[in-house]
């Protein structure tokens, strides 16, 4: 009980100096420090440009991206996603029936913490919940159908600002904290955390690739990668990150992956959705 109160106080930003380190979960303070770190480190990158990842910090890359984005190769996935989104299920209902505002322009509100199930619900999970509620088989979280569908939903939300909420529920704060932990924990034989690449080394090169800053990273998802020759889901991105450091990836949309997305999206609050993005 005492712990719960502390958590709630921390959530509200009212806790003065927390007594124990373990109780010091303070998303608002984290958010400020996180944003501060990136804006100080990259003073020439306008805040809203962080969502363009590597292109915000490398002129040659940016030029190639602008040229390619003028008529992006993900156009076909986007068109397919729109068609899928608008095609009714066998029962006559559509995705629009499952979502607020008929599913248009809502990407910025995902993931959210579902106080009923006590879990983080990402857009991808919400889409499959919608499918299953309407008697349809769920899509594979790592494959093209889910990528196309989420690409379209992100596209209708471009420019909308991330608005991730952490409800007054200790479980929500715990999920946030678990996501934060996963993000900063070193893993794999290469002993890298997500942060090793996307915080400490953001903007640096790995071969010709420029590592995207963690700030705004999720705003570009899903992403078309030239390397993949196609659109990839958030799950695919996380799984690839893990494999690259020689860690066995979690299952797609594993609770921890959802928590990381929750954490990172909260860190990107106020930044515009730029997905679907295109990356090398």
């Amino acid at each position, binding site marked *: 009980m005492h712990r719960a109160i502390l958590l709630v106080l921390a959530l509200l930003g009212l806790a003065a100096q927390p007594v124990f380190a373990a109780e010091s979960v303070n998303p608002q303070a984290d958010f400020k420090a996180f944003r501060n770190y990136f804006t100080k480190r990259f003073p020439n990158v306008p805040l809203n440009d962080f969502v363009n990842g590597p292109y915000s910090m490398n002129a040659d890359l940016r030029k190639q991206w602008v040229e390619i984005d*003028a*008529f992006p*190769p993900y*156009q*076909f996935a986007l*068109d*397919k996603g729109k068609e899928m989104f608008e095609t009714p299920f066998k029962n006559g209902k559509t995705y629009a029936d499952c979502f607020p505002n008929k599913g248009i322009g809502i990407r910025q509100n995902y993931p959210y913490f579902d106080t009923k199930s006590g879990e983080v619900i990402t857009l991808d999970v919400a889409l499959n919940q919608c499918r299953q509620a309407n008697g349809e088989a769920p899509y594979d979280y790592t494959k093209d159908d889910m990528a196309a569908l989420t690409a379209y939903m992100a596209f209708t939300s471009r420019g909308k600002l991330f608005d991730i909420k952490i409800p007054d529920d200790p479980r929500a704060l715990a999920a946030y904290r678990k996501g934060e932990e996963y993000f900063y924990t070193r893993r794999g034989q290469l002993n890298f955390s997500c942060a090793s690449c996307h915080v400490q080394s953001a903007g640096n090169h790995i071969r010709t690739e420029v590592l995207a800053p963690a700030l705004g990273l999720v705003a570009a998802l899903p992403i078309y990668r030239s390397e993949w*020759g196609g659109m990839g889901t958030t799950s695919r991105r996380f799984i690839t990150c893990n494999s690259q450091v020689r860690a066995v990836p979690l299952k797609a949309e594993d609770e921890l992956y959802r928590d990381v997305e929750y954490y990172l999206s909260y860190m990107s609050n106020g930044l515009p959705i730029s997905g679907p993005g295109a990356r090398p």
Partner: protein
Amino acid sequence: MASTIRVRAVASGGNTEVQALVQHPMDSGFVKNAQGQLIPPHYIQVVEFEHGGKVVFTANWGPAISKDPYIKFSFKGAQKGDDLTISWIDNKGAMDSFVGKIQ
């Protein structure tokens, strides 16, 4: 039903700038599939753009053109609202065509 061809053609000051994207794997013949077998070459060889009964642009391509190929060029003499016809054929004889409106 979706076409394999997307086109944006914009007329301005007597000049029409055309950008097109074609959905095609453009397999080079040098890439292996998951089973380690080479994927045979499969790529578009010719894309033709026609306006007012005249071929205004022809792209001759080899396997080094990127997947879902993109092309941009410009020509003179078209008006807003005119038709622009695009057609392609690949090394296996598959084809598609599309009529777009110049904006």
